[in-house]
């Protein structure tokens, strides 16, 4: 009797649960899934599929009409290739110099244009952003003229006016990589400046009013107020800057072709040459996967080391 009463209670509870249970997928859910469907499909088709395809190709001797599986041979060849290590070193040096200087440079420029009124700020932002609007090819042609090794080159004319010897800017191992770095630093800051300006505009004025009462100097304001509050922006620029710098390709391709003596051959250029010059897609994919792992590891380290101190 007791048991049957218990059973009766259980059944009614179950019944209640059944009647109260919400459907697994509601109409609202369907709408949501449909809205993200396009983005997910784009992600699958243009990110995941190429990535998986690249991994598979990296294990093959690629041929358009039937590839041969070669296992890890492309990876082994990459690690045994002196040019790969040289291009990795060139890319690291390029990144280590260009990214911090670029961030510092754009931070200083953003600080300098902040005191101006909105209109003047826009003029400066537009001026610094202009190279980003110009085609990279057009930009390279201009820089090729600036770096022209003959006495008629712009920089060489400047050196001649200063009674200094002309330089073989892009043809000498001593100056070629530096020339590419200078080009990147001087012509690629527009976006960083705009992002820093937006971050600076987001700082509440009350901080500066309080520091003014305390008698803080401009540099103290920068050190103790501005710098900590734009740290998330700095981290963002650092991560995206390093990723972009590791993938640098066009400067070397257009300006030096990787020379002289492969001193400006970056990993991006090496991958391009293997894929499109020597038709070694498998090797190029293996190198691209290695580059992806390096970039992912460095980005992870940055978030781990610098990200913990960042407050959003």
């Amino acid at each position, binding site marked *: 009797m007791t048991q049957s009463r218990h059973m009766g209670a259980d059944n009614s509870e179950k019944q209640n649960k059944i009647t109260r249970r919400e459907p697994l997928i509601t*109409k609202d859910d369907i*709408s949501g899934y*449909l*809205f993200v*469907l*396009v983005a997910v*499909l*784009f992600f699958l*088709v243009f990110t995941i599929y190429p990535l998986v395809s690249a991994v598979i190709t990296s294990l093959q001797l*690629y*041929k*358009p*009409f*039937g590839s041969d599986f070669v296992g890890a041979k492309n990876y082994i060849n990459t690690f045994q290739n002196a*040019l790969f290590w040289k291009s990795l070193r060139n890319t690291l040096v390029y990144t280590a110099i260009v990214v911090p200087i670029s961030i510092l440079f754009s931070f200083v420029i953003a600080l300098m244009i902040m005191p101006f009124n909105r209109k003047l700020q826009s003029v400066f932002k537009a001026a610094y952003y202009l190279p980003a609007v110009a085609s990279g090819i057009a930009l390279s042609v201009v820089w090729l003229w600036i770096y022209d*090794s*003959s006495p008629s080159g712009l920089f060489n004319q400047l050196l001649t006016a200063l009674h200094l010897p*002309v330089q*073989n800017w*892009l*043809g*000498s*191992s*001593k100056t070629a990589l530096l020339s590419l770095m200078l080009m990147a630093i001087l012509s690629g800051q527009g976006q960083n400046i705009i992002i820093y300006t937006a971050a600076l505009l987001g700082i509440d004025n009350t901080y500066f009013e309080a520091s003014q009462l305390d008698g803080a100097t401009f540099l103290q304001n920068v050190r103790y107020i501005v710098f900590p509050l734009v740290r998330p922006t700095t981290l963002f620029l650092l991560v995206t800057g390093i990723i972009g710098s590791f993938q640098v390709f066009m400067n070397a391709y257009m300006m*030096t*072709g*990787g*020379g*002289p*003596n*492969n001193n400006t051959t970056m990993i991006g250029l090496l991958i391009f*040459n293997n*894929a*499109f*010059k*020597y*038709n070694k*897609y498998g090797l190029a994919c293996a190198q691209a996967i290695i580059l992806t792992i390096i970039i992912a590891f460095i980005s992870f380290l940055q978030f781990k080391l610098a990200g913990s101190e960042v407050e959003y």
Partner: protein
Amino acid sequence: MKRRLSVALIGFVTVSMLAGCGQSASNGTSASSENSEPVTSAASTAEVAAGSSASSGATDTITVMVPPVTNDYADKMTEWADEFHTKYPNLTLEVINTSWDDHNTKLSTMAQAGEAPDIAELSYSNIGTYVSNGTAVDITKYMDADMLKDYDQNALDYMTLDGATYGLPLYITIQALGGNKDMLEAAGVDVAKVQADGWTYDQFLSAIKAGTKGDTFGFVFANSGVTASDFINIFGATAGITNAFDSNLKYTYSGKKMLTLLQAIENMTKSGYMPNYGVEASQRMVMCETGNAMIFGKAMPLFENSIKKNNAAIDASDGSAVEDSKKITYAFLPVPTMDGVSESCFGTVDGMVAFKNNNSTDEHLKNVMTALYFLSSGERAAYVDAATCLNGVCQTSRDAISQFESTDRDQGNKDCADRLISEVSAPPTGMTADQSAAAAQMMDEVIVPQMQALLAGETTAQDMYDAIVSAAKDAFGEDGCVLD
């Protein structure tokens, strides 16, 4: 209602996106960038008459990708496509025009995707790469033997790897030196004798020494970037290196002749008779036209046309002449020879190569051969040969060339070019696709970068030679290299 509209819009966007990915392979070659839009012959395939002279009479479209081989090559190709369609009504030629800058990259990308054009213009040195990846087609399997008999064997050998022929030669270019005839004579050079009999390296050094005065260099060679390879290829003949492989199929750039050549280059760069900075390809002839250089390289016979055009522009004073240029007389010159070396000339063959793609069937490839021969022979080849001041490489071109040839060519230049063409030696027979591809990579990854350092004075001839030998041993094995 709003929700239905949202769903409909999402569905539309999704379908549109996927539709973009669903282009059939057959349309692949038609999707081209601005400068590579296909130009189809005027008559559509729908108007094709029955009973054509092509292989089976079924309609077929053949894609051809070409850079501007001559200034008006794109226009000419359109004309020839129409002509071809008239002759073979069931066949249509679809032309993809490219620029010299992007031609090889575009071809490589299309070939790797299995969407190569059926025919593409290609230098013989690049064929090995496409043979290795299985996209180049051995034309002897599909082409009538009579068509192949039209061509000089020497020129056909360039298109042949490991016994298989992958295309038809269009022309043999000869690359040597050019100069300002008046300045050369003022420097004591007997131009006519040099053109007729050649000259020694010592005579050449004396000439460039005498020609170096003030702002004028005795000798300028385009050496900036990848053009550094031209220096090796063209001046290789000076030291007796005519090809990357000898008749025993051993890699020659690792031999002592290479060291002799590198030492000569080192000597010339240090002498001050050449600029000590990188010279862009476009600057070399300009320097000669402005009086800043006496001899320049690389030079080809067709430069006579460019210089005459500039002379005419100076006379016309219409502003189209090279800035600060002077009227000059062009002299085409052989490269000098070192002791114990007989004169030869660096030559390269460009031709029309047949490719396999996703659409290829035996029937289609037979039609491709018809188009390949049509474009590489007769009046089409003669037109190119005349425009480039070169001799034909097939009999039907030589028969037709008189109607295109310019009558005002300098006889000394013409005779010199004719003489040097006969001195070009074809690559050795039996060379494999892998050897060809490895030699091309050696040039790009080792020789050119080292050469740039040598020209910049940052390495020595001996160090560069050692680096080449080391890399050659890795690439071809000790048995595969000349190590004398």
